[in-house]
């Protein structure tokens, strides 16, 4: 039998105990407990894990926070049918997490004003469907409320909603923006995600961990390594296995390489959105160059298939990694060169400076993480706060900006790309010899693991059952957290600023939709 909140999840780094502070709370005391624990300094909220069991109490909720250089904080509460008091008045970042839990598990949250139509779109799914509950039958779609009526917040004469998407003109991910306006400037923006909801958490249930790892890599193809690593680390923590030193060092190289490539792609996207096609194309060419280097030295352009439970599937070899670092350094130099020129270009700066401002306090309230957060003085960085792989021995250089505008985010992406390259060079200079793989036995239980994916804190909550299959896997992605911050940021800016601001967030839809 699953015992929900009572068994302690394991976390990577320190086998056994797990650096997690767990606080159980009676249902009614939840808001007070939360207020006491995080009401003062607002540490980044990472996610809400819900587990469903067949016997009462059926729903077990785990609220997860990361805290600076301290243990993870997990607040547990169990409920059976009753409404859970919403914590969003205290922690606004939990807004979407509660909406997701309501949609997928049918847990109701008292005091949350915007439940309904979120993950499961009203036009496709009946309101009664709660697909993540443990039920033998496969959830089915159909019976939704068609047509979908977008929410309306703005009340002004002549107001209307400008719909954008879900299908776009170019190679863009599917998502819908509903921009409330009276024309020209955005008065309120709704982001409608989950057109691409693939139900991956449900899909993983019942799969062997080795198979689920492949799914995890494909949650977000451009951050495959981060996802694979976070998943593998969770399973390793559960089995109290630590990957060999060499494997951890190479994992760190790969993680930083992925960050580098992803950030260069984001930079190219930002420049592209400002309409400067020459530098945008130059940066895009660098991105392709980095992809080719991945393919050549690491075997896969998007680093699929490299992470294994307990280490790596293959050792690229010192020579390849050295060559990778050398070629990568050249690529980074050219990126810096292009960006130096951009910093002198007024038509570029005009479109980014003081555009899409996310003030530090607001950023903390909204709960953004990763580079977007760091551009608004949110220090949160899993590599520094909860070091994993080889980050304890090779800490990442912290990057921080405070303006919180589009240009601050641009600078963070640029500086982090350069810092990633520095770290790679340090690492490949000191690669330890040894095996790259350790055996991971099947140990039932819960593992919690987080990594700093290119776009921010990414955490996996993995429960492995007795037969070695996944019982529950919850993926807490940075994109899910950061999309929550976008609507607020575009408010009162003109339509034409919208794509620019969105590009400075560097967001993946697949990562949020899962």
């Amino acid at each position: 039998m699953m015992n929900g909140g009572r068994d302690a999840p394991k976390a990577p780094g320190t086998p056994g105990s797990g650096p997690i502070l767990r606080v159980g709370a009676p249902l009614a005391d939840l808001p007070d407990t939360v207020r006491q624990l995080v009401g003062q300094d607002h540490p980044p909220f990472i996610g809400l894990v819900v587990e469903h069991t067949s016997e009462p109490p059926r729903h077990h909720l785990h609220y997860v926070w990361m805290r600076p250089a301290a243990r993870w904080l997990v607040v547990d509460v169990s409920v059976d049918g009753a409404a859970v008091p919403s914590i969003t008045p205290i922690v606004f970042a939990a807004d979407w997490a509660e909406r997701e839990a309501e949609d997928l598990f049918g847990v109701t949250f008292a005091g949350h004003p915007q439940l309904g139509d979120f993950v499961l779109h009203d036009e496709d799914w009946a309101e009664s469907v709660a697909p993540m509950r443990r039920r033998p039958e496969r959830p089915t779609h159909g019976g939704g409320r068609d047509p979908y009526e977008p929410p309306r917040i703005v009340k002004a004469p002549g107001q209307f909603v400008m719909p954008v998407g879900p299908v776009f003109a170019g190679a863009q991910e599917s998502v819908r923006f509903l921009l409330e306006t009276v024309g020209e400037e955005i008065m309120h923006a709704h982001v409608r995600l989950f057109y691409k909801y693939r139900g991956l958490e449900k899909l993983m249930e019942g799969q062997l961990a080795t198979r689920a790892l492949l799914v995890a890599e494909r949650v977000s193809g451009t951050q495959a390594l981060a996802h694979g690593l976070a998943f593998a680390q969770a399973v390793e923590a559960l089995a109290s296995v630590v990957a060999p030193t060499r494997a951890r060092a190479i994992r760190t190289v790969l993680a930083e390489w992925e960050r580098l490539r992803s950030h260069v792609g984001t930079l190219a996207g930002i420049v592209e959105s400002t309409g400067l096609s020459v530098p945008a194309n130059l940066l895009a060419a660098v991105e392709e160059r980095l992809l080719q280097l991945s393919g050549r030295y690491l075997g896969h352009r998007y680093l699929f298939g490299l992470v294994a439970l307990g280490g790596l599937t293959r050792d690229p070899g010192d020579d390849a990694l050295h060559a990778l670092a050398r070629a990568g350094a050249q690529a980074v130099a050219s990126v810096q060169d292009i960006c130096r020129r951009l910093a002198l270009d007024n038509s570029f700066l005009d479109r980014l400076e003081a555009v899409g401002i996310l003030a530090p306090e607001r950023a903390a309230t909204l709960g953004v993480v990763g580079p977007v957060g760091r551009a608004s003085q949110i220090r949160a960085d899993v590599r520094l706060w909860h070091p994993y792989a080889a980050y304890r021995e090779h800490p990442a250089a912290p990057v921080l900006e405070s303006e919180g505008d589009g240009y601050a985010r641009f600078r963070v992406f640029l500086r982090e790309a350069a810092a990633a390259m520095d770290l790679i060079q340090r690492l490949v200079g000191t690669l330890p010899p040894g095996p790259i793989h350790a055996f991971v036995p099947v140990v039932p239980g819960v593992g919690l693991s987080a990594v700093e994916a290119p776009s921010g804190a990414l955490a996996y909550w993995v429960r492995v059952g007795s037969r070695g299959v996944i019982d529950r896997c919850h993926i807490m992605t940075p994109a899910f957290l950061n999309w929550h911050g976008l609507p607020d940021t575009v408010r009162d800016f003109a339509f034409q600023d919208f794509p620019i601001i969105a590009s400075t967030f560097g967001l993946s839809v697949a990562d949020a939709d899962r």
Partner: protein
Amino acid sequence: MIMVPLFFALTLAAAAAGLSRAPRWAAPAGVAQVLALLALAGTVLTHPGHQWLLWPLAGWGILRLTFTALGGFLLVVTALVFLAVHLFAPGYLARYGDRYDLRPLRATLALLLGSIALILLAGDVVTFLVAWELMSVLSYIAVVFDHEAPENPRAAYAMLGAGELGFLMVVAAWLPLVLAAHSIAFSTIAAAAPARLPTGVRWAVFGLSLVGFGVKAGLFPTMSWLPRAHPAAPAHASAVLSGAILNLGLYGIILTNVQLLPAPSPAAGAIVLGLGAATAFLGILYAATETHIKRLLAHSSIENMGLITIGIGAAMTFDRMGLPVLGLLAWIAALYQLLNHSVYKTLLFLGAGAIDQASGELNMDHLGGLGRRLRWTSAFLLAGTMAIAAIPPFNGFASEWLLLQSLLRSVAMANPALEVAFALAGATVALAAGLAATAFIRFYGMTFLGRHRSDHAARAREVTVSQRAAMGFLAALALMLGIVPTYVASGLARVAGSLAQSRDVQAFIPTFFRPATLPPALASAFYPLGAALGQRVLPAPGVVFMHPSTRLHAGVVFAMSPTYLTVAIAVALALAFALAQLLGRGRVRRGHSWMGGARTVDAGLTYTATGMARPIWVIFRAVLSPGQTVDREEVVAEHFRVSVRREDGARYVVDRLIVDPAIRGARTLAHLFARMHRGSVNAYVGYAFIALLAALLLVRIT
């Protein structure tokens, strides 16, 4: 000559028929009255200068009617407007039938037409002013008709009040004239007054008459009653107001400053020009951002009055600068614009009535998609839209083009200051034309195209046959006036000739282009412009407006041919249609609109009229709404915005900058006086002492 008594007899008959309990006589009587007016106008135009003596007024001359070309022309315009209105009214008024007694309104309209005719025929000050008062009161009664809505009586009252203020100024302006000429007859005043009045008084007469009549014409800065009166009035009364009554203000200005007492200097013309430009700019700016159809049309009327005034100002200036040919052409442009405006604005106001009647809605934000339900109305209003947006081949294009051309001729004056003024006015005309196009494309698109944005729009029903006939008649007129501008202009030249200052004006009426009548050398210069193209096929004269150069004047050449343009457009359309038929036959696939991958889109996801006007609003925010928008948010659970209310407390710019401060100033002054009355004895002694000192000082100095 029999037409004068006949018309006024028919006026009384029509009023009586309107009051009678048998409404079926009202419309025929009205039409008979209008036809009589048309005949009367014909008489007036063929007998310029003829006088009808009515009643002697001891010592001050005889009350009389005088036939003038300008009066005759305006009688024709008025008759056209009323003809359409009479066709439209019965079907339109049916909706009011159960709430109001319609009889007084019918009688009012008949008498209103009589009073307008009397104004245009008046040959002396007293007849004019009496008729003017009559017209003011009658139009007030027509506007206030739908008095149940609380804002309507107030709007009508504002109109009456403003009109009376203007009337007093006109009386003040005319008093010196009458005193100087010692006669009330216009003819005597025109002959005697100019020589007897000092320049200062002449300027005062100019200023007072400009502002006083400007109130009725809706000129800056006294036009704020107009956008309020129009939404209040029934649609056909609005049509009369815009199509006939506004013209009277301009008539008054021309009568006073061109015919009775020619303006004291070219600067006066430039002032009129500037006033026109300011009016046109503000008018079109508000029209381009307004979402209520009738207010939009009202602002557009202001713009058109501004354009006509620009033409008048240009004509006055050219005349004073000794350029009668250019003056004449500017007069033609102004009169042409006036004629066109009366036609298309009447059409559009009647159309607004049809929209209101069909859907019960006049806010474009809640309309949309009416084209599918009101096929005829939408077709006629498309004509009206194209006409007012100055899109060829409709009439607005011809007159605005001519106006712009005449402004561009300002170099001939060789006076830098005036050239700058003309250039600015020209820029305003161009800007106004551009904004008018956006305003009216928005009007048409938001009302007739797309999806309906409310249930009333979805349930709209087409209007009656005679209402459609009224609109169709005006749409046809708008097209005709657009495709044969050379005929229209040569007709108008006779009216304009009576206004131009030059004595030998007849010599300068442009010779319209007929190659056969021109010296071969001159004609051949125009062949490259396509002048001779199709001259045997097309009945209308003229690709080109021109006047050959003489010893005194450089030639004036305007190349334009809406006639050929019409043919070209028709041919191009036919070709495109044929091509589509030929190539696309059997391959047409109908699907629904592409909506970004979503299948259903409700009307709330489509552009509103407000949204479409937003770019203009943003550009001209400083004029339209400086810092007057407030967003009020409602937030629940600490963080969730559940509503944002935007309140735009914007006040009409003229009210904000001129009317309100004036009222405040008047109040403060009144307060001060009141305080003086309540003051202590010491204060009174103080005032008296200061007054005494001032008087002594004055005496010392002089």
